[in-house]
Protein backbone atom coordinates (compact mmCIF):
# COMPACT_ATOMS: atom_id res chain seq x y z
CA UNK A 1 0.00 0.00 0.00
CA UNK A 2 1.32 3.40 -0.95
CA UNK A 3 0.05 5.20 2.13
CA UNK A 4 3.01 5.98 4.28
CA UNK A 5 4.04 8.61 6.77
CA UNK A 6 3.38 9.02 10.42
CA UNK A 7 -0.08 10.50 10.04
CA UNK A 8 -1.50 7.84 7.71
CA UNK A 9 -4.64 6.24 9.11
CA UNK A 10 -4.17 2.76 10.49
CA UNK A 11 -4.95 -0.09 8.18
CA UNK A 12 -7.26 -1.66 10.74
CA UNK A 13 -9.74 1.18 10.17
CA UNK A 14 -10.86 -0.54 7.03
CA UNK A 15 -12.30 -3.33 9.17
CA UNK A 16 -14.83 -0.86 10.53
CA UNK A 17 -16.05 0.00 7.04
CA UNK A 18 -14.93 -2.07 4.11
CA UNK A 19 -15.62 0.51 1.37
CA UNK A 20 -13.04 2.96 2.63
CA UNK A 21 -10.13 1.03 1.37
CA UNK A 22 -11.38 1.26 -2.17
CA UNK A 23 -12.16 4.98 -1.95
CA UNK A 24 -8.74 5.73 -0.51
CA UNK A 25 -7.05 3.76 -3.25
CA UNK A 26 -9.11 5.49 -5.91
CA UNK A 27 -8.03 8.82 -4.44
CA UNK A 28 -4.38 7.78 -4.66
CA UNK A 29 -5.00 6.65 -8.24
CA UNK A 30 -6.56 9.93 -9.33
CA UNK A 31 -3.99 12.23 -7.75
CA UNK A 32 -1.19 9.89 -8.81
CA UNK A 33 -2.43 10.04 -12.40
CA UNK A 34 -2.27 13.84 -12.21
CA UNK A 35 1.30 13.59 -10.99
CA UNK A 36 2.19 11.19 -13.79
CA UNK A 37 1.01 13.76 -16.34
CA UNK A 38 4.21 15.67 -15.54
CA UNK A 39 6.32 12.66 -16.47
CA UNK A 40 4.30 12.15 -19.66
CA UNK A 41 4.81 15.77 -20.68
CA UNK A 42 8.57 15.59 -20.23
CA UNK A 43 8.87 12.30 -22.09
CA UNK A 44 6.48 13.56 -24.79
CA UNK A 45 8.48 16.76 -25.20
CA UNK A 46 11.68 14.89 -25.93
CA UNK A 47 9.93 12.27 -28.04
CA UNK A 48 8.11 14.75 -30.27
CA UNK A 49 11.15 16.95 -30.80
CA UNK A 50 13.37 13.97 -31.60
CA UNK A 51 10.93 12.35 -34.01
CA UNK A 52 10.04 15.62 -35.78
CA UNK A 53 13.67 16.61 -36.23
CA UNK A 54 14.91 13.12 -37.08
CA UNK A 55 15.34 13.90 -40.78
CA UNK A 56 17.60 16.82 -39.86
CA UNK A 57 19.56 14.77 -37.33
CA UNK A 58 20.22 12.12 -39.99
CA UNK A 59 21.04 14.57 -42.77
CA UNK A 60 23.31 16.94 -40.84
CA UNK A 61 24.91 14.69 -38.26
CA UNK A 62 27.52 16.29 -36.03
CA UNK A 63 28.03 19.07 -38.54
CA UNK A 64 24.82 20.50 -37.09
CA UNK A 65 26.50 21.23 -33.76
CA UNK A 66 29.90 22.36 -35.05
CA UNK A 67 29.14 23.87 -38.45
CA UNK A 68 28.74 27.63 -38.55
CA UNK A 69 27.04 28.04 -41.92
CA UNK A 70 23.30 28.49 -41.59
CA UNK A 71 21.87 29.00 -45.03
CA UNK A 72 18.43 27.40 -45.36
CA UNK A 73 18.01 28.26 -49.04
CA UNK A 74 21.29 26.44 -49.82
CA UNK A 75 20.40 23.54 -47.55
CA UNK A 76 23.25 24.36 -45.14
CA UNK A 77 22.34 23.83 -41.50
CA UNK A 78 25.15 24.46 -39.03
CA UNK A 79 23.79 25.69 -35.71
CA UNK A 80 27.21 26.57 -34.27
CA UNK A 81 26.54 30.30 -34.44
CA UNK A 82 23.38 29.95 -32.35
CA UNK A 83 25.11 27.80 -29.78
CA UNK A 84 27.96 30.31 -29.49
CA UNK A 85 25.47 33.20 -29.37
CA UNK A 86 23.55 31.50 -26.60
CA UNK A 87 26.74 30.71 -24.69
CA UNK A 88 28.15 34.26 -24.90
CA UNK A 89 24.92 36.01 -23.93
CA UNK A 90 23.88 33.69 -21.13
CA UNK A 91 27.29 33.20 -19.54
CA UNK A 92 28.02 36.94 -19.57
CA UNK A 93 24.58 37.60 -18.09
CA UNK A 94 25.20 34.89 -15.51
CA UNK A 95 28.46 36.45 -14.32
CA UNK A 96 27.08 40.00 -14.14
CA UNK A 97 23.78 38.96 -12.56
CA UNK A 98 25.39 36.70 -9.96
CA UNK A 99 27.69 39.49 -8.81
CA UNK A 100 24.77 41.86 -8.29
CA UNK A 101 22.32 39.27 -6.97
CA UNK A 102 24.57 37.77 -4.30
CA UNK A 103 25.46 41.20 -2.95
CA UNK A 104 21.78 42.15 -2.91
CA UNK A 105 20.91 38.91 -1.11
CA UNK A 106 23.65 39.55 1.46
CA UNK A 107 22.42 43.11 1.90
CA UNK A 108 18.86 41.93 2.45
CA UNK A 109 19.74 39.17 4.92
CA UNK A 110 22.71 40.55 6.81
CA UNK A 111 22.45 44.32 6.75
CA UNK A 112 19.08 45.80 5.90
CA UNK A 113 16.48 46.12 8.66
CA UNK A 114 13.26 44.32 7.76
CA UNK A 115 11.34 47.53 6.92
CA UNK A 116 13.88 48.06 4.13
CA UNK A 117 14.66 44.46 3.18
CA UNK A 118 11.04 43.57 2.57
CA UNK A 119 10.15 46.23 -0.04
CA UNK A 120 13.50 45.86 -1.82
CA UNK A 121 13.17 42.09 -1.98
CA UNK A 122 9.64 42.51 -3.22
CA UNK A 123 10.64 44.99 -5.92
CA UNK A 124 13.43 42.78 -7.18
CA UNK A 125 11.05 39.82 -7.28
CA UNK A 126 8.57 41.92 -9.25
CA UNK A 127 11.19 42.14 -11.98
CA UNK A 128 10.68 38.39 -12.44
CA UNK A 129 6.96 38.89 -13.02
CA UNK A 130 7.33 41.38 -15.88
CA UNK A 131 6.71 39.58 -19.18
CA UNK A 132 9.58 38.86 -21.52
CA UNK A 133 8.11 40.88 -24.40
CA UNK A 134 7.90 43.97 -22.23
CA UNK A 135 11.64 43.65 -21.53
CA UNK A 136 12.16 43.33 -25.26
CA UNK A 137 10.09 46.43 -26.06
CA UNK A 138 11.94 48.39 -23.39
CA UNK A 139 15.21 46.95 -24.67
CA UNK A 140 14.77 48.22 -28.22
CA UNK A 141 13.33 51.64 -27.55
CA UNK A 142 14.93 52.67 -24.25
CA UNK A 143 17.93 50.53 -23.32
CA UNK A 144 19.32 50.12 -26.85
CA UNK A 145 19.58 53.84 -27.64
CA UNK A 146 20.96 54.49 -24.14
CA UNK A 147 23.70 51.90 -24.64
CA UNK A 148 24.57 53.37 -28.06
CA UNK A 149 24.98 56.93 -26.78
CA UNK A 150 26.54 56.37 -23.38
CA UNK A 151 27.85 52.88 -22.71
CA UNK A 152 29.02 51.91 -26.21
CA UNK A 153 31.58 54.73 -26.62
CA UNK A 154 32.83 54.14 -23.09
CA UNK A 155 33.50 50.50 -23.90
CA UNK A 156 35.21 51.13 -27.25
CA UNK A 157 37.41 53.85 -25.76
CA UNK A 158 38.64 51.77 -22.83
CA UNK A 159 38.41 48.00 -23.31
CA UNK A 160 38.09 48.34 -27.08
CA UNK A 161 41.51 49.93 -27.36
CA UNK A 162 43.06 46.80 -25.89
CA UNK A 163 40.81 43.91 -26.93
CA UNK A 164 39.45 43.92 -30.51
CA UNK A 165 36.28 42.10 -29.43
CA UNK A 166 35.20 45.18 -27.49
CA UNK A 167 35.78 47.47 -30.46
CA UNK A 168 33.24 48.29 -33.17
CA UNK A 169 30.25 50.47 -33.89
CA UNK A 170 27.66 50.45 -31.11
CA UNK A 171 24.18 49.47 -32.39
CA UNK A 172 20.71 49.48 -30.90
CA UNK A 173 20.45 45.72 -31.39
CA UNK A 174 23.26 43.22 -30.92
CA UNK A 175 25.11 41.21 -28.31
CA UNK A 176 25.51 43.97 -25.73
CA UNK A 177 21.82 44.91 -25.31
CA UNK A 178 20.96 41.20 -25.24
CA UNK A 179 23.45 40.62 -22.41
CA UNK A 180 22.16 43.59 -20.42
CA UNK A 181 18.51 42.60 -20.83
CA UNK A 182 19.27 39.00 -19.83
CA UNK A 183 21.24 40.18 -16.81
CA UNK A 184 18.30 42.25 -15.60
CA UNK A 185 15.97 39.31 -16.17
CA UNK A 186 17.90 36.71 -14.19
CA UNK A 187 18.94 38.84 -11.21
CA UNK A 188 15.63 38.12 -9.41
CA UNK A 189 15.98 34.35 -9.86
CA UNK A 190 19.49 34.26 -8.43
CA UNK A 191 18.69 36.83 -5.74
CA UNK A 192 15.64 34.97 -4.43
CA UNK A 193 17.41 31.64 -4.11
CA UNK A 194 20.59 33.17 -2.67
CA UNK A 195 18.51 35.03 -0.12
CA UNK A 196 16.84 31.79 0.94
CA UNK A 197 20.04 29.81 1.31
CA UNK A 198 21.89 32.67 3.03
CA UNK A 199 18.93 33.04 5.37
CA UNK A 200 19.18 29.32 6.09
CA UNK A 201 22.73 29.62 7.44
CA UNK A 202 22.39 28.92 11.18
CA UNK A 203 22.69 31.91 13.48
CA UNK A 204 25.19 30.09 15.66
CA UNK A 205 27.54 30.07 12.69
CA UNK A 206 27.47 33.87 12.67
CA UNK A 207 27.55 34.29 16.43
CA UNK A 208 30.56 32.02 16.71
CA UNK A 209 32.71 34.08 14.42
CA UNK A 210 31.44 37.41 15.75
CA UNK A 211 32.40 36.27 19.23
CA UNK A 212 35.93 35.78 17.94
CA UNK A 213 36.00 39.46 17.00
CA UNK A 214 35.24 39.37 13.28
CA UNK A 215 33.78 42.36 11.50
CA UNK A 216 30.51 41.90 9.67
CA UNK A 217 32.18 41.45 6.28
CA UNK A 218 34.62 38.93 7.75
CA UNK A 219 31.67 37.07 9.19
CA UNK A 220 30.02 36.99 5.73
CA UNK A 221 33.22 35.95 4.02
CA UNK A 222 34.29 33.29 6.50
CA UNK A 223 31.11 31.96 8.07
CA UNK A 224 28.18 32.71 5.76
CA UNK A 225 29.30 32.43 2.14
CA UNK A 226 31.15 29.11 2.40
CA UNK A 227 28.14 27.62 4.15
CA UNK A 228 25.70 28.90 1.50
CA UNK A 229 28.02 28.35 -1.43
CA UNK A 230 26.50 25.33 -3.13
CA UNK A 231 23.01 26.80 -2.77
CA UNK A 232 24.10 30.09 -4.29
CA UNK A 233 25.79 28.24 -7.15
CA UNK A 234 22.59 26.27 -7.66
CA UNK A 235 20.60 29.49 -7.81
CA UNK A 236 23.05 30.93 -10.30
CA UNK A 237 22.75 27.87 -12.51
CA UNK A 238 18.96 28.15 -12.42
CA UNK A 239 19.43 31.73 -13.58
CA UNK A 240 21.64 30.40 -16.35
CA UNK A 241 18.92 27.98 -17.43
CA UNK A 242 16.50 30.85 -17.60
CA UNK A 243 18.90 32.94 -19.67
CA UNK A 244 19.54 30.07 -22.07
CA UNK A 245 15.84 29.53 -22.69
CA UNK A 246 14.82 33.18 -22.75
CA UNK A 247 13.24 33.89 -26.11
CA UNK A 248 11.35 37.02 -27.05
CA UNK A 249 13.22 39.66 -25.10
CA UNK A 250 16.42 38.41 -26.71
CA UNK A 251 14.88 38.04 -30.18
CA UNK A 252 13.85 41.69 -30.09
CA UNK A 253 17.25 43.06 -29.09
CA UNK A 254 19.92 40.72 -30.48
CA UNK A 255 19.75 41.81 -34.11
CA UNK A 256 19.00 38.39 -35.62
CA UNK A 257 21.81 37.66 -38.05
CA UNK A 258 23.23 34.18 -38.61
CA UNK A 259 26.88 35.16 -38.45
CA UNK A 260 29.53 34.58 -35.82
CA UNK A 261 29.78 37.78 -33.74
CA UNK A 262 33.16 39.48 -34.18
CA UNK A 263 32.41 42.22 -31.68
CA UNK A 264 30.31 42.80 -28.59
CA UNK A 265 28.14 45.15 -30.67
CA UNK A 266 27.57 42.70 -33.54
CA UNK A 267 24.11 41.31 -34.27
CA UNK A 268 23.77 37.54 -33.97
CA UNK A 269 21.29 34.84 -32.91
CA UNK A 270 20.69 32.64 -29.91
CA UNK A 271 19.08 29.21 -30.24
CA UNK A 272 15.76 30.40 -28.86
CA UNK A 273 15.74 33.57 -30.97
CA UNK A 274 16.43 31.80 -34.26
CA UNK A 275 13.47 29.53 -33.62
CA UNK A 276 11.20 32.45 -32.75
CA UNK A 277 12.38 34.41 -35.76
CA UNK A 278 12.45 31.78 -38.51
CA UNK A 279 10.01 29.02 -37.62
CA UNK A 280 6.85 30.64 -38.93
CA UNK A 281 8.41 31.57 -42.24
CA UNK A 282 10.46 28.38 -42.55
CA UNK A 283 10.75 27.44 -46.22
CA UNK A 284 10.14 23.74 -46.47
CA UNK A 285 10.35 20.64 -44.33
CA UNK A 286 14.15 20.50 -44.03
CA UNK A 287 14.37 24.03 -42.62
CA UNK A 288 11.58 23.27 -40.16
CA UNK A 289 13.20 20.00 -39.08
CA UNK A 290 16.52 21.81 -38.57
CA UNK A 291 14.83 24.43 -36.37
CA UNK A 292 13.18 21.64 -34.37
CA UNK A 293 16.64 20.15 -33.90
CA UNK A 294 17.82 23.51 -32.57
CA UNK A 295 14.93 23.30 -30.11
CA UNK A 296 16.01 19.80 -29.16
CA UNK A 297 19.56 20.96 -28.43
CA UNK A 298 18.15 23.85 -26.42
CA UNK A 299 15.87 21.52 -24.48
CA UNK A 300 18.64 19.05 -23.73
CA UNK A 301 20.91 21.88 -22.59
CA UNK A 302 18.37 23.47 -20.23
CA UNK A 303 17.41 20.02 -18.97
CA UNK A 304 21.00 19.27 -17.97
CA UNK A 305 21.53 22.71 -16.45
CA UNK A 306 18.32 22.36 -14.47
CA UNK A 307 19.16 18.92 -13.15
CA UNK A 308 22.55 20.11 -11.89
CA UNK A 309 21.06 23.24 -10.35
CA UNK A 310 18.18 21.48 -8.61
CA UNK A 311 20.52 18.92 -7.12
CA UNK A 312 22.72 21.69 -5.73
CA UNK A 313 19.81 23.73 -4.35
CA UNK A 314 18.24 20.64 -2.82
CA UNK A 315 21.39 19.64 -1.07
CA UNK A 316 21.23 22.88 0.87
CA UNK A 317 17.54 23.60 1.38
CA UNK A 318 15.93 20.18 1.56
CA UNK A 319 17.04 19.26 5.03
CA UNK A 320 16.07 22.66 6.30
CA UNK A 321 12.61 22.49 4.77
CA UNK A 322 11.88 19.17 6.41
CA UNK A 323 12.61 20.81 9.76
CA UNK A 324 10.13 23.61 9.07
CA UNK A 325 7.38 21.21 8.08
CA UNK A 326 7.68 18.65 10.85
Amino acid at each position, binding site marked *: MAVTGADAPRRSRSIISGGRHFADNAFIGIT*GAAALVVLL*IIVGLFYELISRSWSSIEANGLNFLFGTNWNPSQGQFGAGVFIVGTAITSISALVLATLVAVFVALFLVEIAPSWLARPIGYMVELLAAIPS*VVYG*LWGIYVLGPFLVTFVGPAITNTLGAVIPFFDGTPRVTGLLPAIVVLTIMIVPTIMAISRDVIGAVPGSQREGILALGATRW*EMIKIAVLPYARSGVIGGAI*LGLARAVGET*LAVTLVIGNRASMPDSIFAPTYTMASVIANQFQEADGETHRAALLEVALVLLAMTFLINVVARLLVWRVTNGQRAVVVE
Partner: protein
Amino acid sequence: MNEAARRPIFRRRKMVNMIMTGVMGAAAVIAVIPLVLIVFYVLWNGFGSLSLSLLIEDPNSPGRPGGGVRNALTGSAIMVGLGVAIGAPIAIGCGVFLAEYGQNRLGTVLRFLVDVLAGMPSITIGLFMYALVVLPNKQFMAIAGALALAIILLPIVARITEEMLLLVPRGLREAAYALGAPRWRTVIRIVLPTALPGIVTGLMLALSRIAGEAAPLLFTSLGNQFTSTDLLRPIDALPSRIYSYASGPFDYWHEQAWAMSLLLVLFILVVSLGVRAIAGSKVTVRQ
Protein backbone atom coordinates in the same frame (compact mmCIF):
# COMPACT_ATOMS: atom_id res chain seq x y z
CA MET B 1 39.60 52.88 23.04
CA ASN B 2 42.20 50.29 23.92
CA GLU B 3 45.60 49.82 22.38
CA ALA B 4 44.60 47.03 19.96
CA ALA B 5 41.88 49.15 18.39
CA ARG B 6 44.40 51.73 17.26
CA ARG B 7 46.57 49.32 15.32
CA PRO B 8 46.61 49.81 11.53
CA ILE B 9 45.44 46.27 10.84
CA PHE B 10 42.31 46.91 12.84
CA ARG B 11 41.64 50.11 10.95
CA ARG B 12 42.12 48.27 7.67
CA ARG B 13 39.65 45.59 8.67
CA LYS B 14 37.11 48.22 9.61
CA MET B 15 37.70 50.01 6.34
CA VAL B 16 37.18 46.82 4.29
CA ASN B 17 34.03 46.18 6.27
CA MET B 18 32.68 49.64 5.47
CA ILE B 19 33.57 49.37 1.79
CA MET B 20 31.89 45.99 1.42
CA THR B 21 28.81 47.26 3.26
CA GLY B 22 28.70 50.07 0.73
CA VAL B 23 29.09 47.61 -2.15
CA MET B 24 26.20 45.51 -0.90
CA GLY B 25 23.98 48.57 -0.50
CA ALA B 26 24.96 49.78 -3.96
CA ALA B 27 24.08 46.38 -5.43
CA ALA B 28 20.62 46.65 -3.93
CA VAL B 29 20.17 50.08 -5.50
CA ILE B 30 21.47 48.83 -8.88
CA ALA B 31 19.08 45.88 -8.81
CA VAL B 32 16.08 48.08 -8.16
CA ILE B 33 16.89 50.70 -10.84
CA PRO B 34 15.80 48.59 -13.87
CA LEU B 35 12.42 47.89 -12.33
CA VAL B 36 11.85 51.56 -11.67
CA LEU B 37 12.93 52.44 -15.22
CA ILE B 38 10.84 49.75 -16.91
CA VAL B 39 7.72 50.57 -14.92
CA PHE B 40 8.28 54.28 -15.52
CA TYR B 41 8.63 53.92 -19.30
CA VAL B 42 5.71 51.54 -19.57
CA LEU B 43 3.51 53.94 -17.62
CA TRP B 44 4.78 57.04 -19.47
CA ASN B 45 4.58 55.67 -23.02
CA GLY B 46 1.61 53.44 -22.29
CA PHE B 47 -0.72 56.07 -20.87
CA GLY B 48 0.18 58.37 -23.76
CA SER B 49 -1.14 55.83 -26.27
CA LEU B 50 -4.03 54.37 -24.31
CA SER B 51 -7.47 55.04 -25.76
CA LEU B 52 -10.94 53.59 -25.74
CA SER B 53 -10.71 52.54 -29.38
CA LEU B 54 -7.67 50.43 -28.48
CA LEU B 55 -9.90 48.29 -26.31
CA ILE B 56 -12.99 47.98 -28.48
CA GLU B 57 -11.75 47.90 -32.08
CA ASP B 58 -9.95 45.28 -34.13
CA PRO B 59 -6.65 46.26 -35.78
CA ASN B 60 -6.74 48.30 -38.99
CA SER B 61 -5.00 46.92 -42.03
CA PRO B 62 -1.24 47.36 -41.49
CA GLY B 63 0.01 50.88 -42.09
CA ARG B 64 -3.32 52.59 -41.42
CA PRO B 65 -3.02 54.24 -37.97
CA GLY B 66 -5.83 53.83 -35.48
CA GLY B 67 -7.74 50.71 -34.71
CA GLY B 68 -7.36 48.64 -31.58
CA VAL B 69 -6.43 45.28 -30.16
CA ARG B 70 -9.79 43.87 -29.11
CA ASN B 71 -8.83 40.62 -30.85
CA ALA B 72 -5.74 40.28 -28.66
CA LEU B 73 -7.58 41.09 -25.43
CA THR B 74 -10.35 38.56 -26.01
CA GLY B 75 -7.90 35.97 -27.32
CA SER B 76 -5.67 36.30 -24.26
CA ALA B 77 -8.65 36.10 -21.93
CA ILE B 78 -9.91 32.96 -23.65
CA MET B 79 -6.57 31.17 -23.78
CA VAL B 80 -5.49 32.11 -20.26
CA GLY B 81 -8.89 31.11 -18.89
CA LEU B 82 -8.78 27.83 -20.73
CA GLY B 83 -5.16 27.24 -19.72
CA VAL B 84 -6.09 27.66 -16.05
CA ALA B 85 -9.18 25.48 -16.47
CA ILE B 86 -7.12 22.67 -17.99
CA GLY B 87 -3.96 23.06 -15.95
CA ALA B 88 -5.27 23.84 -12.48
CA PRO B 89 -7.10 20.54 -11.73
CA ILE B 90 -4.11 18.49 -12.87
CA ALA B 91 -1.71 20.75 -10.99
CA ILE B 92 -3.73 20.59 -7.78
CA GLY B 93 -4.06 16.80 -8.10
CA CYS B 94 -0.32 16.57 -8.58
CA GLY B 95 0.31 18.83 -5.59
CA VAL B 96 -2.03 16.75 -3.41
CA PHE B 97 -0.25 13.56 -4.42
CA LEU B 98 3.16 15.05 -3.67
CA ALA B 99 2.05 16.34 -0.27
CA GLU B 100 -0.01 13.33 0.83
CA TYR B 101 1.77 10.37 -0.71
CA GLY B 102 5.05 11.87 -1.80
CA GLN B 103 7.17 11.56 1.33
CA ASN B 104 9.09 8.69 -0.25
CA ARG B 105 11.39 7.91 -3.14
CA LEU B 106 8.67 8.09 -5.81
CA GLY B 107 7.62 11.49 -4.48
CA THR B 108 11.20 12.75 -4.57
CA VAL B 109 11.52 11.75 -8.21
CA LEU B 110 8.17 13.31 -9.16
CA ARG B 111 8.97 16.50 -7.28
CA PHE B 112 12.24 16.67 -9.14
CA LEU B 113 10.47 16.22 -12.49
CA VAL B 114 8.00 18.99 -11.62
CA ASP B 115 10.92 21.32 -10.89
CA VAL B 116 12.63 20.32 -14.12
CA LEU B 117 9.46 20.96 -16.12
CA ALA B 118 9.23 24.40 -14.52
CA GLY B 119 12.67 25.20 -15.92
CA MET B 120 12.03 24.19 -19.52
CA PRO B 121 12.04 27.03 -22.06
CA SER B 122 8.52 28.07 -22.92
CA ILE B 123 9.31 28.15 -26.62
CA THR B 124 10.08 24.42 -26.62
CA ILE B 125 6.73 23.81 -24.94
CA GLY B 126 5.14 25.79 -27.77
CA LEU B 127 6.92 23.62 -30.32
CA PHE B 128 5.79 20.50 -28.45
CA MET B 129 2.17 21.56 -28.84
CA TYR B 130 2.85 22.49 -32.45
CA ALA B 131 4.11 18.97 -33.11
CA LEU B 132 1.36 17.33 -31.08
CA VAL B 133 -1.71 19.34 -32.07
CA VAL B 134 -1.03 21.74 -34.96
CA LEU B 135 0.88 19.42 -37.31
CA PRO B 136 -1.50 16.43 -37.22
CA ASN B 137 -4.52 18.72 -37.72
CA LYS B 138 -2.76 21.01 -40.21
CA GLN B 139 -4.35 23.94 -38.43
CA PHE B 140 -3.13 26.55 -35.93
CA MET B 141 -5.70 26.74 -33.16
CA ALA B 142 -6.55 28.45 -29.88
CA ILE B 143 -6.76 25.18 -27.98
CA ALA B 144 -3.14 24.34 -28.80
CA GLY B 145 -2.05 27.67 -27.29
CA ALA B 146 -4.21 27.07 -24.23
CA LEU B 147 -2.65 23.62 -23.75
CA ALA B 148 0.85 25.11 -23.97
CA LEU B 149 -0.09 27.69 -21.33
CA ALA B 150 -1.57 24.92 -19.15
CA ILE B 151 1.77 23.06 -19.26
CA ILE B 152 3.58 26.21 -18.13
CA LEU B 153 1.12 26.70 -15.29
CA LEU B 154 1.20 23.07 -14.14
CA PRO B 155 4.55 22.90 -12.28
CA ILE B 156 4.11 26.32 -10.64
CA VAL B 157 0.70 25.51 -9.17
CA ALA B 158 1.63 21.92 -8.31
CA ARG B 159 4.55 22.99 -6.12
CA ILE B 160 2.64 25.80 -4.43
CA THR B 161 -0.27 23.42 -3.72
CA GLU B 162 2.11 20.92 -2.19
CA GLU B 163 3.74 23.51 0.04
CA MET B 164 0.39 24.92 1.13
CA LEU B 165 -0.94 21.46 2.03
CA LEU B 166 2.14 20.72 4.11
CA LEU B 167 1.51 23.92 6.08
CA VAL B 168 -1.92 22.72 7.27
CA PRO B 169 -1.63 21.96 11.00
CA ARG B 170 -1.47 18.30 11.80
CA GLY B 171 -4.04 18.60 14.55
CA LEU B 172 -6.74 19.31 11.97
CA ARG B 173 -6.08 16.04 10.19
CA GLU B 174 -5.91 14.12 13.41
CA ALA B 175 -9.24 15.57 14.48
CA ALA B 176 -10.78 14.36 11.22
CA TYR B 177 -9.26 10.91 11.58
CA ALA B 178 -10.49 10.74 15.16
CA LEU B 179 -14.01 11.37 13.91
CA GLY B 180 -13.60 8.36 11.63
CA ALA B 181 -13.07 10.17 8.34
CA PRO B 182 -11.06 8.22 5.76
CA ARG B 183 -7.99 9.84 4.35
CA TRP B 184 -9.44 10.98 0.98
CA ARG B 185 -12.33 12.62 2.77
CA THR B 186 -9.99 14.32 5.21
CA VAL B 187 -7.99 15.74 2.32
CA ILE B 188 -10.99 16.96 0.35
CA ARG B 189 -13.11 18.28 3.22
CA ILE B 190 -10.50 19.45 5.71
CA VAL B 191 -7.01 19.86 4.28
CA LEU B 192 -7.79 21.37 0.86
CA PRO B 193 -10.29 23.96 2.17
CA THR B 194 -7.80 25.01 4.85
CA ALA B 195 -5.06 25.43 2.27
CA LEU B 196 -7.40 27.03 -0.28
CA PRO B 197 -6.30 30.68 0.17
CA GLY B 198 -2.70 29.66 -0.45
CA ILE B 199 -3.62 27.60 -3.50
CA VAL B 200 -5.72 30.43 -4.92
CA THR B 201 -2.88 32.91 -4.56
CA GLY B 202 -0.60 30.41 -6.27
CA LEU B 203 -3.11 30.13 -9.10
CA MET B 204 -3.30 33.90 -9.42
CA LEU B 205 0.47 34.18 -9.66
CA ALA B 206 0.63 31.42 -12.26
CA LEU B 207 -2.18 33.13 -14.15
CA SER B 208 -0.27 36.39 -14.28
CA ARG B 209 2.77 34.47 -15.49
CA ILE B 210 0.99 32.76 -18.40
CA ALA B 211 -0.84 35.96 -19.32
CA GLY B 212 2.55 37.41 -20.26
CA GLU B 213 3.84 34.42 -22.22
CA ALA B 214 4.15 34.93 -25.96
CA ALA B 215 6.80 32.41 -27.00
CA PRO B 216 4.58 29.31 -26.65
CA LEU B 217 1.81 30.98 -28.65
CA LEU B 218 3.77 31.89 -31.77
CA PHE B 219 3.44 28.43 -33.33
CA THR B 220 0.23 27.24 -31.68
CA SER B 221 -2.46 29.90 -31.72
CA LEU B 222 -0.52 31.92 -34.32
CA GLY B 223 -2.50 35.16 -34.14
CA ASN B 224 -5.53 36.61 -35.84
CA GLN B 225 -6.38 40.03 -37.29
CA PHE B 226 -9.97 39.66 -36.17
CA THR B 227 -11.72 38.90 -32.92
CA SER B 228 -12.36 35.18 -32.79
CA THR B 229 -13.84 32.86 -30.20
CA ASP B 230 -13.42 29.66 -32.20
CA LEU B 231 -11.15 27.31 -30.27
CA LEU B 232 -10.25 25.36 -33.40
CA ARG B 233 -9.07 28.43 -35.33
CA PRO B 234 -6.12 30.79 -34.90
CA ILE B 235 -6.66 33.37 -32.18
CA ASP B 236 -4.77 36.49 -31.13
CA ALA B 237 -3.04 37.20 -27.81
CA LEU B 238 -1.76 40.32 -26.08
CA PRO B 239 1.90 39.36 -25.55
CA SER B 240 2.39 38.00 -29.06
CA ARG B 241 0.81 41.13 -30.54
CA ILE B 242 3.20 43.26 -28.47
CA TYR B 243 6.01 41.20 -29.95
CA SER B 244 4.93 41.63 -33.57
CA TYR B 245 4.16 45.34 -33.12
CA ALA B 246 7.45 46.01 -31.33
CA SER B 247 9.45 44.52 -34.21
CA GLY B 248 7.22 46.05 -36.88
CA PRO B 249 7.88 49.16 -38.95
CA PHE B 250 5.08 51.57 -38.00
CA ASP B 251 5.22 54.20 -35.26
CA TYR B 252 1.60 53.69 -34.27
CA TRP B 253 2.36 49.99 -33.79
CA HIS B 254 5.10 50.89 -31.33
CA GLU B 255 2.74 53.20 -29.47
CA GLN B 256 0.09 50.49 -29.32
CA ALA B 257 2.74 48.02 -28.15
CA TRP B 258 3.51 50.33 -25.22
CA ALA B 259 -0.19 50.67 -24.45
CA MET B 260 -0.64 46.88 -24.50
CA SER B 261 2.42 46.49 -22.28
CA LEU B 262 0.83 48.92 -19.87
CA LEU B 263 -2.36 46.84 -19.73
CA LEU B 264 -0.34 43.67 -19.19
CA VAL B 265 1.97 45.13 -16.53
CA LEU B 266 -0.95 46.75 -14.69
CA PHE B 267 -2.75 43.42 -14.67
CA ILE B 268 0.30 41.67 -13.29
CA LEU B 269 1.01 44.38 -10.71
CA VAL B 270 -2.58 44.33 -9.49
CA VAL B 271 -2.63 40.54 -9.23
CA SER B 272 0.70 40.44 -7.49
CA LEU B 273 -0.12 43.25 -5.06
CA GLY B 274 -3.48 41.64 -4.35
CA VAL B 275 -1.80 38.32 -3.67
CA ARG B 276 0.72 40.06 -1.43
CA ALA B 277 -2.08 41.63 0.54
CA ILE B 278 -3.84 38.29 1.03
CA ALA B 279 -0.94 35.95 1.55
CA GLY B 280 1.77 38.12 3.04
CA SER B 281 5.17 36.99 1.86
CA LYS B 282 4.45 33.28 1.94
CA VAL B 283 3.98 32.77 -1.77
CA THR B 284 6.16 34.04 -4.56
CA VAL B 285 6.32 33.03 -8.19
CA ARG B 286 9.68 32.07 -9.52
CA GLN B 287 10.69 31.16 -12.97
